[in-house]
């Protein structure tokens, strides 16, 4: 019995940290997909951009970790607004296949640009000394970096929940997700709402990419490598909610870590089987409304 407890604690801890990053990156995708029904496969590009910019602001430009992260998040959010206003907006009424292809095109271009500027190797995030240490708890030590990510993730999840459920802005988002036409007819400017949500979602993705750069390494293949996982979080959680992706990210993060730790010879096979089963059982996601 005693030998299993440390393994379980370790899996839970690492799984939680991974889940929080997945959540922070994917939640924006969930809300924008629910709002506009836009299949934005290029969401991971914003996370990658956040990671690259954070590293670059720190290393050649000499900012500290927190301010580099903040500047990177703001920059990515600004870029995303430009993309949304000039390109995405043309495809809201287009068919799914066109949205998928368009965003795959964006991914390819982003990969090429990233490789051109930063080269093919993964980027190293120089963490501040505080995050390098270990926290001693119950006779075991946990890396501070991952504990920090778990705390940050929980805070963001709570903040988003409060923002969506307790503010009038959140009420407008919920109204638009439920029924865009009706929301528009009662005077909600859904277009502006969407632009703002899109920027917020991209900024969160950039934050997740930057903060999680030591867990999900930043390299040019990033948007494709993790695409399936982001989509799993959205599809299993149910589009347009902030609670669904949280639960889905927890399930995915912990079970993926457990699979890789306990059954490395099976790899991610179980995850795909579980995804398949989950989507057949609840096609609109665990918390989605059909």
């Amino acid at each position, binding site marked *: 019995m005693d030998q299993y407890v440390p393994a379980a604690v370790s899996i839970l801890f690492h799984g939680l940290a991974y889940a929080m990053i997945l959540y922070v990156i994917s939640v924006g995708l969930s809300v924008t997909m629910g709002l506009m029904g836009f*299949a934005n496969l290029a969401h991971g590009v914003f996370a990658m951009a956040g990671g690259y910019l954070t590293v670059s602001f720190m290393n050649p430009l000499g900012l500290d970790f927190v301010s580099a992260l903040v500047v990177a998040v703001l920059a990515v959010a600004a870029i995303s607004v430009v993309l949304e206003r000039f390109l995405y907006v043309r495809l809201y009424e287009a068919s799914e296949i*066109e949205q998928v292809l368009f965003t795959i095109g964006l991914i390819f271009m982003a*990969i090429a640009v990233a490789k051109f500027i930063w080269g093919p190797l993964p980027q190293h995030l120089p963490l501040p000394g505080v995050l390098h240490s270990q926290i001693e708890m119950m006779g075991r030590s946990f890396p501070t970096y991952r504990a920090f990510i778990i705390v940050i993730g929980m805070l963001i999840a709570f903040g988003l929940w409060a923002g969506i459920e307790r503010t009038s802005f959140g009420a407008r988002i919920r109204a638009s997700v439920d029924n865009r036409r009706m929301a528009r007819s009662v005077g909600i400017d859904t277009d502006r709402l969407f632009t703002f949500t899109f920027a917020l979602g991209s900024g969160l993705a950039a934050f997740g990419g930057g903060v999680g750069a030591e867990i999900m390494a930043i390299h040019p293949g990033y948007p494709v490598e993790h695409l399936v996982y982001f*989509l799993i979080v959205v599809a299993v959680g149910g589009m347009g909610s902030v609670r669904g992706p949280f639960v889905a990210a927890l399930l995915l993060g912990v079970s993926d870590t457990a699979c890789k730790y306990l059954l490395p010879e099976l*790899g991610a096979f179980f995850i795909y089987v579980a995804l398949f089963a989950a989507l057949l059982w609840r096609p609109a996601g665990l918390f989605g409304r059909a």
Partner: protein
Amino acid sequence: MLGSFALRRLFPPSRAPTTSPVEYMVRSHRLRWPELLPWVVVIACYQGFPSYLALGSQVMIMVLFALSLDLIMGYAGIVTLGHAAFFGVGAYSAGLLAVHGWGEPISALAVAAVVAGLLGIVTGAVILRTHGLTLLMLTLAVVSMLSEAANKAGSITGGADGLQGITLSPLLGLFRFDMFGRTAYIYCAVVLLLAWAFMRVLVHSPFGRSLTGVRENLPRMHAIGAPVHRRLVTAYAISAALAGVAGALQAQTTQFVGLNVISFDLSGAVLIMLILGGVGRLYGAFIGAPIYLIAQDMLSRLDPVYWFFWVGLLLVVVVLFARGGILGLFDALRRRIVR
């Protein structure tokens, strides 16, 4: 959609006299001369570029693969990111048969078609109950699952090293697969010709028309009592079988099966080829696949990074400005000249 339909009802194009639906269908099925152009090119390339026959075979295999995708995506409107699952299963079926002593190529092709088709029926029956993002995710889940399985079952598939040691007996017992790829080229061309003829009959048949109906107006197809789910699964299985044949051809002509035959990347690439040529036109595959592969061959020799950038830009431009692909542009041009 409704608006343009109503407009067409109000202002029928002057050049097309009103005909009965049957006449329209028969006329659109009649063979026109440009449809023979691909075959002229196939023969001309055999004579003109004898040192590029391997690339030629590869192009024809991808044309066949894209053609199979056109049936479900262009005609039935099923968006899939996992079509390489069937290509890969076909490739591994043919490859494993050859490695274990069944070197006869044509029967292996048939086995690959059956295996991929069965997989199409099983997965299609399940995943085609959903639509939209869920369907997209499920197709992605299927290909990821199989890819992971092929990767981990290294003792059977060779894993990341690939399946090696494929040896084929002579085609029809007469023609050996030579090192210049002449036999392989003709073999691929004949298989593609047969598949094209089959697809052409299929999409102009009532079955093919009903698929278009499902794509254009699902509620109405339900309302007139069409067995929508069964039609979609049938189309999915046929498409899967054709993709399996393409995969088997690839395994046989290159005598190697790598993990990339069953990847998300290949699913994406074939999608791009089809979009580039034009979806739902039967000939998009014949235009898109060669252009994509030849451009890749030339550009990636310069630098694979730039290749990615240009493909991405091309996709964005096609989606924003040329939704019918190259064939769509061609149609628009012709309409402008005729007017």
